[in-house]
């Protein structure tokens, strides 16, 4: 939104208002602020919409650790365009209504030029609606519902995580050939689960396999007995799970307790690091991830070291995929602002679209790019299993394969995503 021309009187009034605001803000707005540069150029302000409570409270905070590291690194180098990068955060509570309110507050009141962060797709969408209205660029760091870069994509939103379809593509064909054709789906009964299950089903059938049943598990299920009995009765070759958050922790625990892990091949679509940390003894089967802190790639150990130095007190001792995505989204945004030479949203969006990111730069096996059609980051997708010979107590995964972005691409989203024209986006500069 370009502000109208400012008259001198208006400017005076505005500065008075700012003064009043600054005074009251300390009283009414006890938001976590990071004001360092008081004078000089106006800072670039980012709004971090991270859950601190609710189903994804833990993951939201890990996401934020990644973002803050990237911001700190830029500020240490003198900021972006010679301007300090400031950030502000508030708990989005894993709740869409709260997401809307926080996004409104960050854009309208706190004058944030950019929003970053989401785990839950409902919250991500609520924030996107607000961002659309103002034309504010929004980085969906970690919500991996395929609909995020499909039917619910947006010109102002960029999606940084791999989605359910990507992981299915990477895992399924191989498993049908090597393990067996009789597949059972165990699906969390919500959008991410459904779309992921549909993607898995398509891949299984394409590879010549067969889905014998799809058991829908309500969100927040802790007692999986009824499902596990049913699984035993069906006797499938492969069980493909799309179970998220703390639910998968409980399920793993119960499968391990009953020693069912060897009765069939278990595939978990995507295993977020914060969801496995703390219960490593229950890790089994094959699962997907887009990054791991012990990948044998250049830059990885240095990154982990930097992260750990910054967060010596972190409840999770090493960065995982969630923190990684937060970091990468923030870093790339700030780089693009620097490169474009302004904070003009349209210019930044255009620069992000189709942007290529070298493998070595992103600490992944293959080069990645931002899909100009869907705004999803097309990247390396890894499959992993429990590490039988861990180097230390954080070394839980053994990476067993890496799919290229082309192998894992979600082709359906290319047709379901319809982006608005640039001219329909309100423009702003911060």
């Amino acid at each position, binding site marked *: 939104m370009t502000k109208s021309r400012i008259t001198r009187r208006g400017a005076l009034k505005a500065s008075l208002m700012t003064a009043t605001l600054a005074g009251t803000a300390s009283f009414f707005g006890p938001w976590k602020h990071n004001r360092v540069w008081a004078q000089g150029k106006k800072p670039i302000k980012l709004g971090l919409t991270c859950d601190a409570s609710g189903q994804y409270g833990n993951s939201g905070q890990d996401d934020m650790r990644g973002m803050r590291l990237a911001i700190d690194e830029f500020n240490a180098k003198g900021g972006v365009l010679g301007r300090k990068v400031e950030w502000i955060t508030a708990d989005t509570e894993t709740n869409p209504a709260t997401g809307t309110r926080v996004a409104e507050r960050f854009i309208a009141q706190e004058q944030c030029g950019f929003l970053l962060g989401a785990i839950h797709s409902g919250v991500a969408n609520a924030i996107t609606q607000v961002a659309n209205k103002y034309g504010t660029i929004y980085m969906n760091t970690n919500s991996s519902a395929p609909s995020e870069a499909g039917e619910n994509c947006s010109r102002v939103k960029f999606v940084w995580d791999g989605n359910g379809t990507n992981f299915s593509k990477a895992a399924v064909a191989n498993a049908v050939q090597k393990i067996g054709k009789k597949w059972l789906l165990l699906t969390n009964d919500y959008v991410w689960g459904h779309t992921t299950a549909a993607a898995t089903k398509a891949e299984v059938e394409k590879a010549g396999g067969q889905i014998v049943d799809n058991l829908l598990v309500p969100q927040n299920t802790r007692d999986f*007995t*009824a499902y596990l009995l*049913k699984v*035993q*009765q069906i006797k499938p070759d492969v069980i493909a799970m799309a179970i998220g958050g703390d639910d998968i922790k409980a399920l793993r625990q119960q499968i391990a*307790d*009953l020693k069912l892990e060897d009765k069939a091949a278990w595939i978990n679509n995507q295993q977020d690091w914060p969801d496995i940390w703390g219960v490593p003894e229950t890790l089994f089967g094959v699962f997907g991830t887009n990054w791991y802190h012990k990948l044998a790639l250049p830059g990885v150990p240095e990154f982990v070291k930097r992260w750990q130095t910054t967060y010596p007190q972190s409840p999770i001792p090493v960065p995982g995929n969630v923190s990684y995505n937060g970091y990468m989204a923030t870093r790339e945004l700030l780089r693009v602002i620097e490169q474009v030479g302004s904070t003009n949203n349209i210019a930044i969006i255009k620069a992000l679209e189709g942007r290529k990111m070298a493998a070595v730069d992103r600490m992944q096996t293959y080069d990645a790019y931002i899909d100009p059609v869907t705004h999803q980051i097309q990247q390396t997708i890894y499959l992993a299993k429990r590490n039988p010979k861990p180097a230390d107590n954080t070394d839980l995964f053994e990476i067993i394969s890496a799919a290229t972005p082309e192998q894992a691409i979600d082709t359906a989203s290319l047709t379901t995503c319809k982006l608005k024209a640039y001219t329909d986006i309100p423009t702003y500069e911060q």
Partner: protein
Amino acid sequence: MSIVGLLPHLVNGLALGLLFALLALGFMLILGLMEQINLAHGSLFALGAYFAHAIATPRLPLPPDMLQVWAQVPLGWRFTAAMFLAPVLVAPFGVILERLMRRTYGRDPLYGLLLTFGAAMVIEELIRIAWGTRDYMLPVPRGISGGFLMLDLIWSTYRFWAAGFAVIAMAVVWLVIERTRFGALVKAGAHDSEIVQALGHNLEKLRVWVFVLGTVMAAVAGVILAPIWGIRPHMGVDAVIPAFVIIVLGGVGSFWGAVLGGLLVGMVVGLSGAYASEWSMLSMYLLLILIVTFRSRGLFGKKSVLEA
């Protein structure tokens, strides 16, 4: 679906039902004997689970050397200690809650409900402050954990132990209510408080004891169910709603109504999980609407002040 295929799910539903009945029992005691709705029942249940975890893992706020000694004790003993000690630790919360509720006696039962709704919020937040938002698992001693083979399927051993514990706990409550002087007094008080006072008994004290019994039962259910349902701040809310549903299904004030209500809910949840997993979340509520539409006071309900 064949009978052979159905059987495991019936067995599972039965075990689950006993656990649900246990969960609802403390709630029923306070409701049936005091005509007070304790929405904080779930929070007391959660506290039971958290305290049990603190005792068993062990994370007690004790001096490190004492803690070390306790950690050397076999898990079986620690688990047993948790089962008996955690409810004792939760009991004071019940006493406090009863004191607060006293102000609402004689008023519309809605106020008791609202008070305990607020108390539930407060306890849940206190749990978040004390233990954080993460999930915990209560470890089960090796002897009663793991799986065993039955009907050609692997079953969770602890589930059956838990159902057994539930039966014992319920039997104890039944004996206390039906076979002791205390029980007789309490029951009399529920129907006519003046008689009890005329007989020279302190009704206030009696009420505290009923509340403590309800609280202890909530905590016991929390300990027994923790290894199955996990431990997290939100577990109280997740537990109080089924308890509520079961009581209304079974009929307010009826011991056997609560047991039967619990079994019915367990069956419906177990069977729908296996055969209509899409509906499992809703099954409990549909059952409630169905039964209460045809039997307005539930299966064994009597008329109570709560309808006013």
